[in-house]
């Protein structure tokens, strides 16, 4: 009897979602799908981060990255190791990003010679001195924001939904580093193509443009943003993140996400 009831409930819910999918999705559903299509079971990547100052001076960081989803996608484990420049080579970050609680993070610095647990709830701060924030590098929590459809627009030839995303409260604003975000999300694949950020005082601060994307998991249609440019309109600095190589690998050994591998 219990089994029949459960089946009925599942059929009912799937019926509702089928109806929903045949209609225009809500702004929140678009954002949710946008996050889902970039949620990849496991990847290995080599990427470059170029930080360009207002006078054109460049700083280059190269890194190797691993990521894997756990707990039905609610936890993402990540490992980043820097390979350039020389003075940060060997530095490693290990993080467990949780859906509903503060992340656990560790850093290994060759000069420290040991892995050290770090406590940082400051996701709004700059990632390695770039215009990207730590929040930009992680998947956002859908429930932390209010969503509104603004219009539809074409970005680089791709028809997009234009959403206004506003943090629900002050804590969420401070944690993410913006008071408002306008996102341009592809209608066809739900991949974000552009975003405009407004700082905590309401000024238009940064513009993110996705230059290229790659379909990493062709079976489940999961994508990664291959080249992203972030321009800061207030200080005229620019950062470009490029994935040089990427490999879909859902079978990365769990051992890789331990301090043993950060130190190797």
């Amino acid at each position, binding site marked *: 009897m219990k089994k029949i009831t459960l089946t009925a409930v599942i059929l009912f819910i799937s019926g509702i979602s089928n109806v929903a999918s045949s209609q225009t999705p809500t702004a929140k559903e678009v954002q949710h799908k946008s996050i889902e299509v970039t949620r990849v079971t496991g990847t290995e990547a080599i990427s470059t981060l170029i930080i360009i100052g207002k006078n054109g001076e460049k700083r280059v960081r190269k890194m190797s990255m691993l990521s894997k989803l756990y707990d039905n996608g609610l936890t993402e484990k990540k490992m980043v190791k820097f*390979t350039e420049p020389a003075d940060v080579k060997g530095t490693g970050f290990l993080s467990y990003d949780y859906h509903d609680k503060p992340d656990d993070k560790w850093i290994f610095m060759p000069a420290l010679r*040991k892995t050290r647990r770090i406590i940082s709830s400051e996701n709004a701060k700059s990632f390695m001195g770039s215009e990207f924030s730590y929040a930009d590098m992680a998947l956002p929590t859908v429930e932390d924001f209010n969503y509104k459809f603004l219009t539809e627009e074409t970005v680089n030839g791709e028809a997009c939904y234009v959403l206004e995303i506003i943090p629900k409260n002050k804590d969420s604003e401070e944690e993410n580093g913006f008071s408002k975000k306008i996102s341009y999300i592809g209608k066809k694949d739900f991949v974000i193509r552009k975003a405009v950020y407004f700082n905590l005082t309401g000024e238009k601060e940064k513009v993110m443009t996705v230059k290229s994307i790659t379909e990493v998991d062709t079976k489940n249609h999961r994508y990664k943003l291959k080249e992203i440019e972030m321009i800061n309109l207030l200080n005229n600095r620019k950062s470009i993140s490029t994935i040089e190589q990427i490999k879909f690998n859902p079978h990365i050994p769990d051992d890789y996400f331990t301090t043993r591998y950060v130190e190797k």
Partner: protein
Amino acid sequence: MNDRNMVSVILFQKSGFSQCLTLLTFLVFPFTLHSQDLFESSFFESDSSRQANYQLGGYFRSGIFGNENTIREKYVEGTCKLVITGNKYGNAQAEMRYRASNGINGENNGFWLREGYVNLYFGKFDFRIGQQVVVWGRADGFNPTNHITPTDFIVFSPDEDDKRLSTFIAKGTYNCYPFKLEMDWIPGYKASILPFGNASLPTGVSRGEDHTPSLKWKNSSFGVKLDWEKPTFDGSVSYYKGYHKMPGLNYACSSGGAEIFTLPWKTQVFGTDFSTAAGSFGLRGECAFTLPDSEPDSLFSSPCKQLEYTLGVDREWGNFSLIVQYVGKYIFDFDKEITAQTPLAKEVIRYNRMLFSQLEAWNHSVSIRPSISLMHETLKCEMFGLVNFSTEEWFLMPKATYSISDALTFCIGVQLFGGGTNTLYGFIKKSRNSGFAELKLSF
């Protein structure tokens, strides 16, 4: 004699057993290349072209330490790090340094092997054999459990890591998540470099030859550490048995006068540490009980047994971070009264007590490390401060490091020690207090 043997002999003569053993270890482990995962190949292997199976890196730096009256030290240093990129079964690396310096430590020019070791990986077992630095402890800067490798108390460098001396160690780790069992075997003894080199000796007293335990099994030291690493909490229990890295001072009288020398002592150290998060705060602590094999002699050249403990909290606010720690120590069977028959014996006891920081039965200290990153993380300003309320010693080291470019950094700062006449910081302030500046080019 071929080149390899020649190098081995030169190193043996110049730097002793451990460096020679390291070189031999380094040379006998060739590695073959195999295709690995993308991540591993980017870091652990040579480039995909397979043209070279090694990587070279290093730096050149030049700096000066001094105050308004004296240049404590000026130096030029270069280091070359060779990494033989192996495969999933192992790799190897060696770092050779050259330093030319002139100052209160004398004029020194020479090459030395900073580190040189082979890593071997067999399933859950990791081995690292060779000249290396091993650091234990989760606290910030004050690690009572850290006894494997010695310390250089006289080096002038803005980099804390330069105070760590390497020694030959065979280290094995068994990884069974969430546990990690580490075992270190240190066959030969290497003492810390003590800050008493410039101490003036009374008439009739000279510096004798330091005692070094011979290379025998019974003179080797070992350490065992069991780590427990879970996402929300990590910690360890550790045990060390062998010679303490900090030798005591002793003297012997002969017809020609008295000779002062260092004398190593054996001990056992039982330790534990942890780190965890409590909301936006990080908590870390460390504790160690040091139990010398023998009771202190009349000169206190080995110390009394002691319990050391550190408890710290850290927090970040944007680009600003702060670490505050309480550092405490209790010395068992402590007798503050110095009873000595001769003035020389009294002096030796005084120095030993300073050295082992056994001046009071209870020691209460606080350390603080505020740090801020500015100018898009190109400028890092940091200060490290310590106050020992029991002995009234203190230390302060503010430092600013600016990355002129990805390869070039400039560092400027001050190191200040303070304390009474009979304290270690009070003693070393005369030769160590200085401002410093350093330019470093990494490649």
